[in-house]
Structure formats: structure tokens, C-alpha cells
């Protein structure tokens, strides 16, 4: 392999690319976990909360859905710093992405719960289950199955959204590739490589989602 060939340059840049890939995957995973946990909690509030809690959650969801993700990331990083809250770029990115996707998961969850037939809740009430147990043993297992397809979508959006973290200086996959390009000028090759890696990650995630859907396919009516 001679210098100037793609394989050589890619090999030269392997460490920064792999580290970028790692940052992309870690920030995605953390954001997805955060969005899933908080999103379901907020979805419960949206669906069953007292009216004032519901109002607050609704406000949050509408603001988050209406805001460009980039604005949110910039605000979390630079905006909070103005108030003396210094969040490292990586964590600012994860929090912004997670907070953004929380709103989507919450909405998906609400829709999923509402699509569970009313008779399920009534049957759960009729055998004397208390609210928490109705939720955990009857409603959630069915709602989670129903929210799986949109949840996979949200996860894919998060992975793609991590590219925006490059704006605040997080050296994730895109930025690490751009740094390599700055040395070797192999712009097309490295963008294609980057694109292929993103597609690979998202394809894997989508397959995982499809597997889960098949696994829970007995939840039909």
C-alpha cells in the first residue's frame, strides 16, 4: 500500500476514526437509554398524570418537538455556560439529544397506551390490580410492543443526530473523518466511508428492532 491510496490513508487514520466511531456509538447509546427511560416516564405522566403535571409534560413535549436539534445542542453547550453551568461538550451533546428524543418517546408511548383497547384496563381493574400493577403487568407490556417501531425510528434519528455534536467540538465519527480529510484531501472516499459506517450502525439497530418485533409478535389480537 502506497501513501495516497485510500486503504493506506484509512489505515493511517484508523485510530482517530475508530475513536470517532466509539464516540458516536457511546453518545448514541447514552442518549437512547436516557430518552427511553425518561420518555416512558414522561409518557406515563402525559397519559395518566394529574392535569397540572400533564400540562407541564405537554409543554415540554411541544417545545422540544418545535425546536431544531442544533439549537438545543448549542444552547445546552454555550447557553448553559452563560449561567455558569459548564457541561463538557460530550455530555452537553448527550443531554441535548436525550432531552430531544425524550419528547418523541413520550409521545410515542402515549399513542401506544391509547391504542391498547380500553377493555384491557377494565379487565385489569376488575381483578383488583392497583394502578401501578395495572400499568406494569398489563398496559406497559402491550404498549412497549406497540411503540417498538417508532422507537426504532427515534433511535436511528439519534444516531444521525450525533453528527451535530461535531459543531460543539465533539470528535465523533463525522468530525474525525473530516480531520483525516484535512490531512489527505480524500474527500469523497472518506465521506463515503463515513456514510457506510452510519448506514451499518443504523441497519444493525433496525435489524435489532425487527428481531424484537418478531419476538413479541404473539401480542396480536
Amino acid at each position, binding site marked *: 500500500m502506497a501513501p495516497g491510496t485510500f486503504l493506506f490513508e484509512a489505515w493511517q487514520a484508523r485510530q482517530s476514526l475508530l475513536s470517532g466511531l466509539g464516540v458516536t456509538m457511546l453518545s448514541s447509546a447514552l442518549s437512547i437509554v436516557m430518552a427511553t427511560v425518561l420518555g416512558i416516564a414522561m409518557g406515563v405522566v402525559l397519559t395518566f398524570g394529574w392535569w397540572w403535571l400533564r400540562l407541564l409534560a405537554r409543554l415540554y413535549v411541544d417545545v422540544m418537538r418545535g425546536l431544531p436539534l442544533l439549537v438545543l445542542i448549542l444552547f445546552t453547550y454555550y447557553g448553559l455556560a452563560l449561567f455558569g453551568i459548564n457541561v463538557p461538550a460530550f455530555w452537553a451533546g448527550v443531554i441535548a439529544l436525550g432531552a430531544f428524543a425524550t419528547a418523541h418517546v413520550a409521545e410515542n408511548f402515549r399513542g401506544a397506551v391509547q391504542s391498547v383497547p380500553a377493555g384491557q384496563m377494565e*379487565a385489569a381493574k376488575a381483578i383488583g390490580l392497583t394502578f401501578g400493577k395495572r400499568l406494569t403487568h398489563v398496559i406497559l407490556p402491550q404498549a412497549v410492543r406497540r411503540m417498538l417501531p417508532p422507537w426504532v425510528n427515534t433511535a436511528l434519528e439519534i444516531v444521525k443526530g450525533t453528527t451535530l455534536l461535531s459543531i460543539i467540538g465533539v470528535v465523533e465519527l463525522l468530525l474525525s473523518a473530516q480531520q483525516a480529510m484535512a490531512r489527505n484531501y480524500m474527500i469523497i472516499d472518506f465521506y463515503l466511508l463515513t456514510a457506510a459506517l452510519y448506514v451499518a450502525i443504523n441497519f444493525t439497530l433496525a435489524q435489532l428492532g425487527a428481531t424484537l418485533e418478531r419476538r413479541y409478535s404473539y401480542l396480536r389480537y
Partner: protein
Amino acid sequence: MNEPALLQAREVRKTFGQIEVLKGIDLTVQQGQVVSLIGASGSGKTTFLRCINLLEEHDGGEILLDGDPVGYTLSGTRRKRLSETKISAQRARLGMVFQQFNLFPHLSAIDNVMLGLTKVQGKGHSEAKDIAQHWLGRVGLAERAGHYPYQLSGGQQQRVAIARAVAMQPRLLLFDEVTSALDPELVAEVLGVMQGLAESGITMLLVSHEMMFVRDVSNHVVFLDQGKVAEAGPPSEIFGNPQNDRLKSFLGRFHGLFGRG
């Protein structure tokens, strides 16, 4: 009058928006009785049944279960709504079987029956399993314990739903048109199970359009018309010697069934 009736409803009223669905229902169910509610669609039968286990809350009159008001406590003359936990505890004393079965689709037949036993009654897994298996046997589905609802026919699903309700040993079993969603050839197997339960002394209150069945299993029949009890009595009187005109015309539609063409 020293022992309160198992279920005592007095002047029960319920309004949905502008429409008064229940206009003062009186009804008593004694321990061991089978009481049936009949009447045309919209007469309030189902609403009344749902008020008993608080799927709806009545807004007038009182429903007493073993002498305790359902849904509230009295402090002086003021009604204080029961907490969510206490309402659940009241519901646990009643069993209900629905028109649409409402089995939990993510649980196998036996897990459907066990859920209340373990999570409401706090029984251990193996004890709950024995009870559930016993009741699945009683409804003729011992072999189907591991099946999921979608693998069962409508009649089988409804029998699992009956097992789920009766396994909790409720004081009173409520049946809400439980054969109305079934194919005609599946109705008999469900009615057979209900008949068996009635004969074993389980107290039941049922809403049904199966007039022959109602006539055969009931101790007491109540005809509801436009939110009121229009006539009530033993089945021999209700079916053999109806007094109320609306009851007569209601039963007229079933005449062929009683061989009086």
C-alpha cells in the same frame, strides 16, 4: 334482617352528560343466588353492572356490598370517595367477565388466571399455579394452559376469562353479556360452564340475552326498561306470567324459544 344481603342496591342513579341511564334501580342479591338482568339494548343493564365494580361511578343512591357502600365511605352523612387502593380492594371482592373476553394477550391462559392470584392476593407462584390449573380444569381447558389467547377460539378465551374471574373466589361474579360476541356454535360451551358454576353455589349476577339460559339458571330475574326496574320476580313468573306490557313485548320477540308460538 340481621345479616346484610350480599349485594343491595337502592335507588341507583347514573347520568352520562344529559342522559339519565339509570333512574333509580333497586336490586338485592343474596348469597348463593343467581340473579339475571334482562332488557332491551340501552335499558341500563350493563351500566348498572359496571357501577357495581366501579368501572362506572353511580351518582345517586347506594350500592352496598356486604353492607359496605361501594366507592365511598360515609363520614356522618358526607360521602368521601375511597382511595384508589381501597377501590381496588373492593373490586377484588368481585369478579367480572366481559362481552369481549379481555384476556391479556401477552400472557398465556394460565398466566392470565394467575395474575390476580399473585399480584392482588399475594399468593406464591406454586400455590397460584395449582389454583389456576384447577380452575382451567373446571372450565375444560386444562390442556390449553400454556396457550396464548390468540391461539384459542372465542369460546375457549371466554372460558379462560371465567376461570380468571372465579379463581379469585369473589363474593359475587358479574357476567356482562358474555356470549354476545361468540359464534352461535360456541355459546353452549360457555353457558355450560356458567351453569356448572351456578349449580356449585357461586353467587352470580348476569346480564344476558340468552333467555332460555336465564330462565333455567336464575333464582330471580329483573327486567330493566329505560333505566328502571319494570318487573322483577322468579323466572317462572317473569317468563310464565309477565304483567308489564313492555316485558310482554320484549319477551314476544323470544316467543318461539318457549314453544308458545
